[in-house]
């Protein structure tokens, strides 16, 4: 074994035993590159996640909802800032991340490749998409890379109000007019597949490099099960129908079974072939072009 191999093995043993890594520490190249890619995707997702929701600030039907939605989206931008700072400290400038995002080279989560059509979507996203996200994010609190684990603490704390806001929006509608109830039901029908895709295809933990390096501490299927366990009862108790006739819980094992999602479709979506992928990336690219001059003037060392 070469010295590097020995060192890498020691590092692997260290993180698997719960060891924490700081920015200046030695890291195997594979760990560093996987780490940057993972964290960058998270930052991209927070940033792209703003786009489906921002149109609804104007259309919010009360002042309180307008404020809450603006604050939620602001939090997401704030999270992008925290996350990209971590990536910057690992050596990749923010501008390079944005370059890769708009060129399609870097990815972002599936759910942000879909259009939003009604106020029902606003509620479903804030409640259920954020709920799915917070499950993953809580698992990241134990990330071996300490600067990322630390910002996850702030992110989880802030996300908790998003879910409450989302649930409140949904509750107002499901107790409102039949048309309002229908808005929620219809949105749920469209969002169920992206939600089932959200945590990724079921790679066993011992085959998932993210888990092996302790970047993630939870396998994809485990996260999905946690989501179903927590939220299917909450959805059903409102009288809403979930569009999967095979969705059921085995009360002995506690395991949820469901119609196997189309994983090829997930791959297609995250590689830029989702219903709104190109439109969103174009928007992000153009917006950036319009304000590029500001960074030149104000942040001479351009981040």
């Amino acid at each position, binding site marked *: 074994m070469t010295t590097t191999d020995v060192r890498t093995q020691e590092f692997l043993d260290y993180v698997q035993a719960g060891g924490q890594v700081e920015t*200046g520490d030695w890291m195997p190249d594979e760990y560093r590159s996987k780490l940057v890619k993972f964290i960058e995707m998270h930052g991209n997702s927070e940033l792209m996640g703003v786009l489906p929701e921002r149109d609804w600030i104007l259309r919010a039907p009360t002042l309180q909802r307008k404020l809450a939605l603006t604050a939620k989206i602001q939090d997401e931008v*704030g999270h992008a*800032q*925290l996350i990209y*700072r971590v990536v910057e400290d690992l050596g990749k400038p*923010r501008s390079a991340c944005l370059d890769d995002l708009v060129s399609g080279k870097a990815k972002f989560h599936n759910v942000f490749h879909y259009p939003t059509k009604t106020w029902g979507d606003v509620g479903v996203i804030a409640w259920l998409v954020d709920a799915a996200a917070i499950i993953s994010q809580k698992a990241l609190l134990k990330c071996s890379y300490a600067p990322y684990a630390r*910002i996850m603490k*702030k992110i989880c704390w802030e996300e908790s109000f998003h879910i409450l806001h989302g649930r409140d929006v949904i509750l107002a509608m499901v107790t409102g007019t039949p048309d309002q109830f229908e808005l929620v039901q219809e949105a749920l029908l469209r969002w169920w597949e992206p939600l089932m895709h959200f945590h990724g295809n079921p790679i066993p933990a011992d085959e998932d490099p993210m888990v092996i390096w302790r970047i993630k501490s939870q396998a994809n299927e485990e996260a999905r099960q946690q989501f179903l366990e927590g939220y299917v009862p909450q959805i059903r108790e409102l009288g809403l129908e979930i569009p999967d006739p095979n969705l059921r819980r085995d009360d002995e094992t506690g395991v949820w079974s469901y119609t196997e999602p189309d994983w090829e479709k997930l791959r297609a979506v995250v590689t830029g072939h989702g219903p709104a992928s190109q439109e969103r990336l174009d928007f992000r690219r153009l917006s950036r072009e319009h304000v590029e001059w500001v960074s030149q003037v*104000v*942040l*001479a*060392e351009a*981040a």
Partner: protein
Amino acid sequence: MTLVWEVFRQERKGQPFAHAGAVVAPDLRFAEVYAREQYGRRQESEALWLVPRDAVHLVHDFPDEFDLKYRRVDGYSIKARLKEARERAGTLQG
């Protein structure tokens, strides 16, 4: 010149200022605006310190080649001697 400003945050009066993150800003006045927002828009901080990244100097690696434990609590084991002293004084309790 740095554009990165480290933010230290005091959660409540009496508590230490702990590192909370960093903001990118053209100068200290912009950094204050941005730090207030990122670390205080929910009134979640009592106070902040802003420090240009250049002013932060990392110090690490603290060797103890000759195991000078006498300066620490774990450098002392008084159990055996204490037992002996109590036996001698007849104050040893079962």
